[in-house]
């Protein structure tokens, strides 16, 4: 378990006034072992139920993901009334579709147009609309994305292989509060007449963050 590794201070030295500022340093340094050690300690004390951890992981690995957001976008493309409702009050509109909960308590949908391309970031941490897009990808949480996209959005888009028309301005939404933003990408040409599932298949995760565009139907 790695809990018995030697410490700079013996237990007797750890009087309250010597409490380290950062107790995490007392756990094994290897992050996988650090997690395991903490999980073991908490389980022994009855503070976590390992089966609950499995349930949380299953939820975000298998049940909640960008397929949810894709359904929302497809419906907005397909149903003018829903689109209006979504842009007016996204929280209510997506709740009606069954998408709500942790990290999606307050939703705002922003629509791309030929004039404005929207992108979403959290420069201060990693805020992301979990009920619609799941757990953020590694790049969304990376220093490079958080640091650059507010200042250099086209440079970031180039990293994703996306080029905008010259006339298109970029609006970057920095999610500094508990409001979560969903980008509604532009509906691609050639998608007329497709049903909801076929439309949803065109909606990529990145297109709902703003680092991508919707796929063009083959």
């Amino acid at each position, binding site marked *: 378990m790695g809990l018995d590794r030697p410490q700079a201070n013996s*237990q007797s030295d750890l009087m309250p006034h010597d409490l380290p500022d950062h107790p995490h340093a007392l756990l094994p340094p290897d992050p996988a072992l*650090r997690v395991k050690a903490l999980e073991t300690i908490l389980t022994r004390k009855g503070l976590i139920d390992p089966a609950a951890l499995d349930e949380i992981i299953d939820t*975000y690995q298998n049940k909640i993901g960008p397929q949810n957001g894709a359904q929302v976008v497809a419906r907005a493309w397909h149903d003018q009334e829903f689109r209006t409702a979504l842009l007016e009050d996204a929280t209510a509109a997506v709740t009606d579709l069954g998408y709500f909960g942790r990290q999606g308590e*307050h939703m705002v949908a922003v629509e791309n147009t030929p004039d404005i391309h929207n992108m979403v970031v959290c420069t201060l941490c990693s805020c992301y609309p979990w009920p619609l897009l799941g757990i953020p990808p590694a790049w969304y949480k990376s*220093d*490079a994305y958080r640091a650059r996209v507010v200042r250099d959005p086209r440079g970031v888009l180039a990293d994703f292989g996306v080029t905008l028309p010259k006339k298109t301005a970029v*609006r*970057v939404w920095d999610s500094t509060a508990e409001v979560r933003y969903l980008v509604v990408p532009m509906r691609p040409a050639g998608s007329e007449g497709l049903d909801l599932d076929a439309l949803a298949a065109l909606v990529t995760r990145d297109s709902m963050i703003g680092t991508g565009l919707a796929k063009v139907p083959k």
Partner: protein
Amino acid sequence: MTRLHDMGGRFGDGPVVPDAPDAPVFAAEWHARALAVTLACGALGQWNIDISRHARERLSPKDYTGFSYYEKWISALADLLVERGVLTVEDLLGQGDDRPHPLASKVLMANDVAATLAKGGPTDRASDIAPRFSLGQAVRCRHPADSCLVDGGHTRLPAYAAGARGYILRLHGAHVLPDSNAHGLGEAPEPLYAVRFAAAELWANPEHPNDQVIIDLWQSYLMPI
């Protein structure tokens, strides 16, 4: 700027590297466990989301820079568990006891996970503080961007917007104020706005004359112009 987490606009981080299209949700099993342990511990009710964000920000600059994403999560969690008195230093050292914990009655059980995640934690509140600004009104962000309540404390005003002029784009209603809530000083809800800034107001060399950055900002971060 006092904290490394506040990195918007920073130079030198290199290109963004997109994930492979078939990348798994969790790149390693321990990432998934770190997230799950953190969420499960949150359910014990010993802190709020602002306290947990602040715990990650308070990692030493060396740790914040050197740790991977979920390494920050699990390390800040360990710090919080000790600071809030849930665990002891002896526990972390593997020298604690295994007696049932007083908080064990609050443990998140597997069959409560779905309801707990679905419930989430809304932060909109009734507030006595009336909105001071109207749509389209010009405002200026506080400068410097530091917390007004606690020296070196938590705030959600990014340093890159400090002192910048923006325009009110949306009113989100009144929300819990992180600067207060992260320090156990109460929720102190106040009006929250989406504020629109011209890129040229924030950056020396904006890419496009019409580019904008929108930031969610609390009323106390803003002054009328």
